[in-house]
């Protein structure tokens, strides 16, 4: 049924070791890799000499699959790619198809899309804080962050029908209109978030153990962040102002007031702080929009069968992890000829070796944790 695959052993991959060096494998089954990432780490004592990530343990051939799905269908598979930013993934694909069709999206749909994207971003960052605190040995923040996350999941479920893989964005708008209780529930979530986030900050931000383990650990300079192609909070913590929502505004972000959260330290703690501040900015964006959702259509009129003209189309969005690019090559038919995703996690992971080299192995969990890796997004 499945082809024979042998587990790669370090001696095949590595240069002959020098005296005193040691190779350890982290993963593919390891609680701190958040999935099935496999790191082959060369150590000298406790100091990391080299990290070699091995990918493909969750390569599901999504790009190849998409070539046999229609322009309406392929969007749904991308919910499973970066499942913590499912809405934003769907949005990127829907926008790319709309670009090909030269379709105008109604205002109401645009606003709904932004609110959903920002709620997703908060949920993703909440989960990340809980998971990373768990990597560093603190279990309690996990319960605090999941309390807020569950509230968002309930809101999503009410409108989209699913908690995690929402599949809400379609070419031309969104699939359904908002649930009648949506606005009230989002407002109560905003109140809840503002009153409870300080608990989290008390627990984590000012925690002396957390600070000792993250400040100055895994430093990535601005020049390196650019040359490795890092995006999202990882790049912004190093001072790269590459937020796609600001640089290449889409879906109406240009009309909104929000800050691009930058930090200059580039260490693990800066990446944490950037994400915390981003959650506040997302709340700020939601507050601007929630009382001003325009009336009207939630979906533009489209034909039942979508055909894109011959050509190449590229869109980019800012997911919770960074820049997601969708590149469609169309031959004029109902299915894409080729689809390529530029996923943020892949390039962020490529900087890991550079960031962790020379540090102690105990610091690796803080460095890797703050990269916020979602392995199905990297492997696709």
């Amino acid at each position, binding site marked *: 049924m499945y082809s024979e695959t042998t587990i790669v052993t370090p001696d095949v991959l590595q240069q002959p070791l020098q005296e005193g060096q040691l190779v350890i494998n982290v993963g593919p089954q390891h609680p701190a890799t958040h999935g099935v990432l496999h790191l082959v780490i060369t150590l000298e004592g406790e100091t990391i000499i080299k990290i070699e990530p091995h990918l493909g343990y*969750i390569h599901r051939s999504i790009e190849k699959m998409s*070539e046999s799905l229609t322009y309406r269908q392929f969007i749904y598979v991308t919910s499973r790619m970066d*499942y913590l930013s499912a809405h934003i993934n769907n949005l990127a694909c829907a926008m790319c198809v709309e670009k090909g069709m030269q379709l105008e999206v109604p205002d109401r749909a645009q606003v709904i899309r932004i609110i959903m994207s920002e709620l997703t971003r908060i949920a993703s960052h909440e989960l990340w804080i809980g998971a990373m605190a768990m990597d560093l040995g603190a279990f309690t923040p996990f319960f605090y962050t999941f309390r807020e996350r569950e509230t968002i999941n309930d809101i999503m479920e009410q409108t989209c029908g699913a908690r995690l893989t929402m599949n809400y964005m379609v070419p031309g708008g969104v699939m359904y209109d908002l649930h009648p209780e949506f606005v009230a529930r989002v407002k109560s979530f905003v109140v809840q978030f503002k009153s409870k986030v300080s608990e989290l900050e008390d627990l984590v931000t000012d925690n002396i153990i957390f600070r000792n383990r993250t400040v100055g650990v895994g430093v990535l300079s601005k020049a390196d962040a650019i040359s490795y192609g890092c995006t999202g909070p990882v790049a912004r913590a190093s001072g790269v102002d590459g937020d796609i929502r600001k640089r290449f505004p889409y879906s109406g972000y240009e009309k909104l007031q929000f800050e691009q959260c930058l930090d200059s330290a580039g260490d693990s703690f800066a990446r944490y702080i950037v994400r915390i501040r981003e959650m506040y900015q997302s709340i700020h964006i939601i507050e601007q929009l929630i009382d001003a959702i325009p009336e009207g259509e939630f979906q533009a009129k489209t034909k039942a069968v979508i055909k894109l003209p011959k050509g190449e189309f590229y869109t980019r969005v800012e997911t919770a992890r960074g820049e997601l690019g969708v590149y469609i090559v169309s031959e004029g038919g109902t299915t894409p000829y080729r689809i390529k995703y530029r996923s943020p996690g892949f390039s962020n992971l490529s900087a890991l070796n550079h960031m962790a080299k020379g540090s102690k192995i105990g610091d690796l969990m803080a460095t890797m944790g703050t990269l916020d890796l979602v392995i199905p997004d990297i492997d696709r």
Partner: protein
Amino acid sequence: MEINHSASQNTEVFPGAVMDLPGGGVVTSSFQDLINWARSNSLWPLTFATSCCGIEMMSTASAKYDFSRFGFEVARATPRQADVIIIAGTIVNKMAPVLKRLYDQMADPKYVIAMGACAISGGPFFYNTYSVVKGADHIIPVDVYIPGCPPRPEALLHALITLQDKIKGGLTREQIREQSTNPSL
């Protein structure tokens, strides 16, 4: 799916008869029933997740759903200390030997739950893929299947309770297989 209610009936209470005596009582039970009763209430899951279903598994561990109410509290990172492996997510060709090795490393008795459409049959990745294993039961035997993409936390809780019922019912998967291959038993 039908649950074996005859199995669950004797699990609501302690498996055995209680004889009241002045100043106390005596419990009679078979040793095997007692072991199974204890075993079913202390299943340690392996923290194994390949994709989206793992997030719902984390939700199930969080305070709102809280699977520690049913004895699944102690999630272990090593297969050598785990009783049940919840296959949360897609299994691809490169992961298949790893999953097999993890299963082999677990100590008997061991149980497997296939969580989500991918672990059951490949799910959304059934057609037109070259790398996805079409169901985890091609690699290791599965006790309980949970449909959904991803399943709700309640569905995972239901699966865990179903597994408990199965264990309390008396026979492990190996015993069932032994019986079916050896009619003399």
